[in-house]
C-alpha cells in the first residue's frame, strides 16, 4: 500500500504539473510532491528496518535493504533538485530561454522521470525494470533538448539513438534470461521475478546466463555511461537544463548500475565463477581511466562534470565487479555519496553558469568573491568529488582500494593512476574558477543554498562518521548481492 503510494504520488503530481506547470507556485507543487515522496520512502525504509528483510507489494513490487537505500537517495535528491530548480528555472524563464509550454513540459517530465526511476528500483520483474529504464530515458530525452539550440537537439538525438541501441541489447539479454528462467520456473510472469530468480539462480543454465549477461552488460552499461559506450553522456548531461543534468548524473546512472548488479548477482549464482565480475571490472577500469584523461581536456564546465560522472560510475562498477563484502560495501556507499556530491556540484555549476551567461570554464572566474555561497559550494563539492578526506567519497574509494590491494593487487596501480589524474584535472580546472578576481560581466544572483549544503553536509557526515545502524544497513544490503 505504502509502496503504491510511493509511485502514485509522483505520477499524480506529474499529471497535475502538466496543466499548471507554468503557474507561479508550480515549483512549490513540484517540491511538495517530491518531498511527499521522500517522506513516504522514509516510512518505507523504517518499515523495512523494523520488519527486517524485504516487503513485497503484490507480486510485482518489492523492497529490500538494497533498493530502499537507493529509493531514499532518489527521493531525497529529487526533492533538493526541485528546490534548486525553483530558483534556477525562474531565472531561465525570466531570461526567456523557456516559455509557457516548456515550463509545463519541464515540470511534468521531471516528475515522470522520478516515477520511472522509482518503478525501476522497486519492481520485482526484470521485464518491468527494462521498461521503466526505457521510460526514464524517453522522459529525459526531450528535457535535454529543452532549449532547442542546435547543440541541445544534437545532444538529445544522440542520447535517444545511442541509448535506444544500447538498451535494446538489454532487452535481448532479458529475453535470454527469461529463456533460462522458464526452464526452471515454468512459463508465465513469475519466471522474471527477482524474488524467484534469486532463489533458484544456481539452477539457471550457465551457457545461456553467460550470453544473457553480455547483452545485459552492454545494454545497461550504455545507460550507466561506461566506456566505450559513453559517447552520448557528456553531450546529454551538458546540454540540458542544470537540474536535469543533476538528476541524470546523480540518479539515472545509479539506476542503470543497480540493474546491472542485480543481473550480476543472478549470473554469479548460476556460473559460480568470476565471469560477470571480470567483465564489470574491465569496463569499470576502462571508464575510470578514459574519463580521467578526458577531463584534462574539457573546456565546458558541465562536460567536465559529466566526465567525472563516468569516472565515478567506473569506480563503482569496478567495485561491484571485484565483489567481496568490502568492495561491494564500498560500491554501494560510493553510489550514494557520488550521487549527493555530484548533484550538489551541478547546482553550484548551474548558478555559476547563470552568473556568467556561459558554460565556458575560461570565462568563469572569481566565484568565491562574487558569490561566496556558490564559490564555496562548488569548491567543496569538487573536493568531495576528487576524493579528499574527510568527505564520504574518500571513505568509499579507500574501501575499494583496500579491497583491490587484497584481491587484485596488480590492478591497484591503474586504479590509483585514474584517481590521481581525475583529482589533478578537477583541481586544475576548478581552482581558477573559484579563486581570483571577479570579472566584469558577472551578474549577481540569489542562489539556492540549502540543497548544495545539505548534500555536502551529508557527504561529510558519511565520511567522518557512519552511524552504526546505517553501517549495519549497508552490510545487509551487501548480503543481498552475494
Amino acid at each position: 500500500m505504502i509502496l503504491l503510494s510511493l509511485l502514485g504520488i509522483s505520477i499524480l503530481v506529474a499529471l497535475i504539473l502538466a496543466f499548471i506547470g507554468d503557474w507561479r507556485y508550480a515549483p512549490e507543487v513540484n517540491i511538495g510532491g517530491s518531498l511527499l515522496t521522500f517522506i513516504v520512502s522514509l516510512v518505507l525504509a523504517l518499515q523495512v528496518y523494523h520488519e527486517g528483510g524485504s516487503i513485497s507489494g503484490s507480486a510485482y513490487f518489492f523492497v529490500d535493504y538494497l533498493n530502499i537505500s537507493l529509493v531514499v537517495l532518489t527521493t531525497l535528491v529529487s526533492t533538493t533538485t526541485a528546490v534548486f530548480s525553483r530558483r534556477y528555472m525562474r531565472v531561465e524563464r525570466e531570461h526567456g530561454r523557456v516559455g509557457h509550454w516548456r515550463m509545463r513540459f519541464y515540470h511534468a517530465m521531471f516528475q515522470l522521470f522520478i516515477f520511472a526511476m522509482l518503478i525501476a528500483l522497486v519492481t520485482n520483474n526484470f521485464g518491468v525494470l527494462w521498461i521503466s529504464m526505457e521510460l526514464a530515458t524517453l522522459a529525459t530525452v526531450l528535457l535535454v533538448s529543452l532549449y532547442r539550440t542546435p547543440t541541445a537537439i544534437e545532444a538529445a538525438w544522440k542520447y535517444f539513438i545511442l541509448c535506444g541501441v544500447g538498451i535494446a541489447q538489454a532487452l535481448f539479454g532479458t529475453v535470454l534470461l527469461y529463456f533460462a528462467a522458464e526452464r526452471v520456473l515454468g512459463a508465465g510472469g513469475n519466471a522474471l521475478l527477482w524474488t524467484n530468480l534469486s532463489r533458484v539462480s544456481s539452477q539457471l543454465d550457465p551457457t545461456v546466463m553467460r550470453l544473457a549477461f553480455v547483452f545485459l552488460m552492454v545494454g545497461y552499461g550504455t545507460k550507466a555511461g561506461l566506456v566505450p559506450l559513453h559517447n552520448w553522456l557528456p553531450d546529454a548531461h551538458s546540454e540540458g537544463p542544470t537540474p536535469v543534468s543533476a538528476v541524470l548524473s546523480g540518479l539515472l546512472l545509479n539506476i542503470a548500475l543497480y540493474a546491472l548488479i542485480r543481473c550480476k548477482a543472478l549470473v554469479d549464482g548460476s556460473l559460480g565463477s568470476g565471469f560477470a565480475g571480470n567483465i564489470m571490472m574491465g569496463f569499470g577500469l576502462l571508464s575510470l581511466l578514459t574519463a580521467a584523461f578526458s577531463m584534462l581536456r574539457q573546456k565546458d564546465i558541465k562536460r567536465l562534470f559529466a566526465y567525472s560522472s563516468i569516472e565515478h560510475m567506473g569506480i563503482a562498477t569496478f567495485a561491484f565487479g571485484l565483489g567481496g563484502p568490502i568492495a561491494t560495501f564500498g560500491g554501494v556507499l560510493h553510489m550514494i555519496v557520488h550521487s549527493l556530491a555530484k548533484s550538489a556540484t551541478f547546482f553550484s555549476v548551474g548558478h555559476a553558469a547563470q552568473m556568467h551567461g556561459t558554460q565556458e570554464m575560461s570565462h568563469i572566474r572569481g566565484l568565491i568573491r562574487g558569490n561566496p555561497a556558490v564559490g564555496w559550494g562548488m569548491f567543496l563539492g569538487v573536493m568531495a568529488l576528487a576524493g579528499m578526506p574527510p568527505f564520504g567519497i574518500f571513505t568509499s574509494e579507500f574501501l575499494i582500494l583496500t579491497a583491490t590491494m587484497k584481491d587484485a593487487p596488480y590492478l591497484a596501480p591503474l586504479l590509483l593512476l585514474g584517481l590521481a589524474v581525475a583529482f589533478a584535472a578537477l583541481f586544475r580546472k576548478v581552482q581558477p574558477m573559484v579563486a581570483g578576481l571577479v570579472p566584469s560581466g558577472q551578474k549577481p544572483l540569489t542562489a539556492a543554498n540549502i540543497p548544495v549544503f545539505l548534500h555536502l553536509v551529508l557527504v561529510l557526515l558519511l565520511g567522518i562518521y557512519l552511524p552504526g545502524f546505517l553501517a549495519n544497513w549497508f552490510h545487509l544490503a551487501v548480503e543481498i548481492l552475494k
Partner: protein
Amino acid sequence: MTHTIATQINSLLAALILLSAFALLAQRKIMGLVHIFAWQGLLLALSTAVIGYASGEHHLYISSLLTLGMKVILLPYILYKLVHKLKIHRDIEAVVNVPTTMLLGIILVVFSYHLTAPIRELSNLMTRSTLAVALATIMLGMLMMVTRRHAVTQILGFLAMENGLFFAATSATYGMPMVVELGVALDLLIAAFIFGIFFFHINTTFESLDVEQMAKLKETD
C-alpha cells in the same frame, strides 16, 4: 503434421523477415523504407499468429494483433504522415558502399548464428532455429542505424531492431509475459511520439533531416 507444416511456414516467414532486414539496409528511398518496414511488421504478425496456432499459446494471438496494429498500421501511418508533412517523401538518401554494408550484414548473420547456437541446442520449441534470425534482425537494425545518416532512416533502424527483439521473444520463449509485452509497446508509442517531435525540431533547426550536420559536439583540444 500441422506442427511440421507450421514449423516450415514459420521458417519461411523468418527467412522473409531476414530478407526484409537486408532490404531495409539497401533501400535508398524514404517511402520505400517505410513500406518495407510495414511488410516486415506484417511478416512478424503472421509468424506470431502461426506460432500461436501451432503451439496452443493463445496469448500470442494478442501479441500478433498488437504487432499488426502497432507496426503494420500505426507506426507506418505516423511515419507516412510525418514524411509527407516534412516534404521529404521524395528524398533519396546518398548511401555509400552498399556492397560493403551487405557483406558486413552477412557476417553479422553468421555471427548471430554462432552466438545463438547453444540456445538452439537447449531449446525444444518449434521456433528454436529462428532465434538466430531474430538476433540477426537486431544486429542489422543496429548496422542500419550506424551506417545511415538520415534521421528517418535511423529511426527505421531503431524500429527494425524492436521488431527483431519481439521476434526474439517469440522464438526463444513463445513471447515474454504479457505485462512486459504491453510495457514495451507503450514505450514504443512514447518513442514514436518523441521522434515525431524530433523530426520537426531537427528539420527547423538544421533545415534538413540529415544528421551528418549535427556534429558540433565533438571533443575539442
